[in-house]
């Protein structure tokens, strides 16, 4: 039985480790009846691990889970257990069957008696849908409904299964504004019925719109549980990033900046891609290091991807050294001296089975052309040169890149782009998931390259890393550029304030 009054769920001292990582380190979490509770934290904070422990996807190493109505701690060993205990989850991606009807989706996997009496099933389903105000018909095929309605159907299924705890994991990522409104309406309705809702999202505005409480995790530890009124946005961002407001260290290195003519290498206007960012303007000067900052999902990667044409560009102009250029595919960008180190190293960066050497020469080789392959000697020379320059730890240039450590893989990708001698280098999360030593090496390298006249965009989830390297920061929130900071404004507190945008609009 949960100790707290009104609580439907209490998780106590939850520990979970994966090889090499402590994902959850003594986390407590509690959820009351009729409350919408936001679970917040940056990437790797442990949100999804906590949810997976709660839903039986992972088994916890240590700790207890108490549910209302159960005297002892409950054991959740599979998603089926969780469901039987009244814990339901609705994920960002729909996990229903698109080719079945709405009603069939609501009753599948719950004994076949209902499914065979389809008349009764449809009537029941219609009653529930109407009751919850969901605009769908029981006999409609699920794939005919919008994503938002599909999500609501998933919620309806959960509610009908008598769920006490409803987990919504990033449910709004693929919804437009009016759909979000509808979903929120349903959530508030369920709250009024006494359901406890755990809401995971990256959108701050949404947290403040519907939630009652916030629990913040960071690096697998509990930062705290707060009532929404007590935690203004700026403070929330500070808690998530792990920086207190008065912790304003100024780490700026001005003595080795590039001293040259003040010209804009790349300038974009009204650029927009099909990845769902609002049109934005941007420029970068020769020898400048700038950054895009914002919380995860704020659209910072999408911006640089649009500049490199990694996503389909739908509007806007790009000028290089003052002249308009047409960039419709990555090769165009590369020909204009732009290089892009992608955020997702595994998916977009490395070519796993190829050797370190082939991975290093790939981009330069593509630029050189199909009919002009590098000779073996040239390829070896380039590979050896950059393995030495960046101190890449590999058995040999022939080793497949996938057998290298993350940091060394990242260095190989960096080498790949340096070999193309770009004028403008975009580094999207170059330091994610790599050890601290390599992180600093990469930061130093960025500053050195800039001092030699290269323009660099540096994106990182770690604000202090960006403050250390960037002389100008573009701040993003909810897929929009909301501000630009430079010089004196480059402080932790200012950055956080702008990210949070507390009541600025």
């Amino acid at each position: 039985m949960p100790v707290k009054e009104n609580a439907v769920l209490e998780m106590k001292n939850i520990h979970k480790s994966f090889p090499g990582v402590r994902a959850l380190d003594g986390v407590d979490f509690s959820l009351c009846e009729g409350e919408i509770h936001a679970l917040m934290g940056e990437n790797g904070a442990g949100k999804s691990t906590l949810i997976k422990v709660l839903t039986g996807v992972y088994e916890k190493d240590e700790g207890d889970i108490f549910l209302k109505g159960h005297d002892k701690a409950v054991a959740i060993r599979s998603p089926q257990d969780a469901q039987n205990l009244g814990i339901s989850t609705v994920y960002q991606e729909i996990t229903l069957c698109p080719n079945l009807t709405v009603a069939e989706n609501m009753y599948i996997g719950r004994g076949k008696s209902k499914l065979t009496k389809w008349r009764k099933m449809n009537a029941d389903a219609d009653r529930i849908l109407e009751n919850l105000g969901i605009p769908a018909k029981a006999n409609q095929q699920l794939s005919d409904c919008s994503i938002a309605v599909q999500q609501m159907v998933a919620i309806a299924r959960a509610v009908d299964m008598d769920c006490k705890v409803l987990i919504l994991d990033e449910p709004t990522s693929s919804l437009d504004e009016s759909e979000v409104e509808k979903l929120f309406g349903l959530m508030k309705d369920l709250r009024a019925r006494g359901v406890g809702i755990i809401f995971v999202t990256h959108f701050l505005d949404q947290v403040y719109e519907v939630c009652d409480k916030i629990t913040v995790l960071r690096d697998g530890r509990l930062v705290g549980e707060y009532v929404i009124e007590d935690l203004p946005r700026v403070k929330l961002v500070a808690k998530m990033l792990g920086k207190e407001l008065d912790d304003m260290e100024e780490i700026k290195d001005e003595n080795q900046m590039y001293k040259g003519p003040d010209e804009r290498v790349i300038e974009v206007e009204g650029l927009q891609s099909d990845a769902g960012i609002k049109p934005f303007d941007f420029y970068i000067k020769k020898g400048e290091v700038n950054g895009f900052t914002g919380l995860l999902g704020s659209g910072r990667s999408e911006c640089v991807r649009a500049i490199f044409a990694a996503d389909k560009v739908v509007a806007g102009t790009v000028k290089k050294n003052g002249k308009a250029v047409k960039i419709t595919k990555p090769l165009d960008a590369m020909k204009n001296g732009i290089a892009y180190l992608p955020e997702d190293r595994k998916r977009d960066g490395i070519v796993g089975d190829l050797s370190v050497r082939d991975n290093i020469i790939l981009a330069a080789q593509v630029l050189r052309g199909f009919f002009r392959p590098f000779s073996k000697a040239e390829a070896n020379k380039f590979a050896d040169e950059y393995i030495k320059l960046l101190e890449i730890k590999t058995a040999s240039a022939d080793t497949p890149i996938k057998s290298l450590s993350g940091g060394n893989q990242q260095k190989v990708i960096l080498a790949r782009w340096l070999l193309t001698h770009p004028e403008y280098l975009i580094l999207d999360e170059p330091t994610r998931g790599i050890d601290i030593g390599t992180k600093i090496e990469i930061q130093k390298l960025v500053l050195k390259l800039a001092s030699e006249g290269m323009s660099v965009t540096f994106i990182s989830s770690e604000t202090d890393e960006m403050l250390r390297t960037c002389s100008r920061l573009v701040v993003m929130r909810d897929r929009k550029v909301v501000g630009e900071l430079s010089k004196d404004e480059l402080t932790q507190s200012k950055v956080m304030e702008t990210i949070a945008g507390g009541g600025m609009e």
Partner: protein
Amino acid sequence: MKVKNKQIFIPLAALLLLALFNLAMDPSFFKISLGNNSAGDPVLTGYLMTILDYGSEVAILAIGMTLVTAACGGQDISVGAAVAIAGSVILRVLVGQGGDGTLQAPIIVAFLIACVVAMLFGAFNGVLVAIFNIQPMVATLILYTAGRSIAAWINNNELPIVTDQTFTYFGGFIPGIPVPTPFFLAVVCVVLILLALKFTNLGLYTQAVGINASSSRLNGLNPTFIKWLSFVILGLCVAVVGLIKTSRLSTINYSVIAKDIEMDAILAVALGGNALSGGKFNIMASILGAYVIQFLTTTLYKFNVSSDALPAYKAVVVIILVVISAPAVKDKLAAYGKKWKKQKEVG
């Protein structure tokens, strides 16, 4: 690096195994004798010559099939049907409809037209796979089903016969040269592809796209085009085999010509140790694989296995191959190897 770890090890070991088996059962398998063919020219005969002759067809197709497999992570099952189309086009151009069998056009012209047609059909498959993202086996199922009918339709379902003697050279022997011509054609194809791999980036691009298309795109490659190109190259290989096949008979049998040859070509790629899910490839291993398969087929024929039962025997080989090269088994074997080594050291 040890030979054991190299890709070529599997086909080489299979070849050795087959050779040893034949040596033990009947050494006369390896006898090659010089005789005269029906035209009175000196030719080499023997089982090994048969392998060289028919294995070359599979070897030529294996070149294209390797590229398709590497780039698209799937296989083209329509090559047999496409060979029928290419062969039919050659005959149509050479003797036309209702002709008396004399040549109406130079053989080279007929062959070039067949090349164009086969590449067009390859391009069709390529569009389905590269642009519409259809699984290659499903996409090529269309041509697999329709191809032989199209081949028959090209010649109005007639069976044109070429009487000209020079046409028989391509699937038989060139007067004065005792080695079957298909082998030379295979050599030409292999040399061409090796030159292409050396002097262009075909190999690097194909592997990069096959391993990680998303990353390749961000490196300026066009994965769609590379995948499509692999099918067009396979089309070219198909045209060459079409020439050999029709030349052997001087005519065509639409339902039988090059039947099931796609399975041999795919098997050659697999036997060559290339991942059927795409990525890194080794053309020479595939080609060796092709001859090994013909070696197996010929061996089975020699031991009087009927052609109907042949696929069952091949199936056994495929099962063994697939199981050996499955990652799960590989890991297990490696683990056992380590254990065994340790024990030996301790003992």
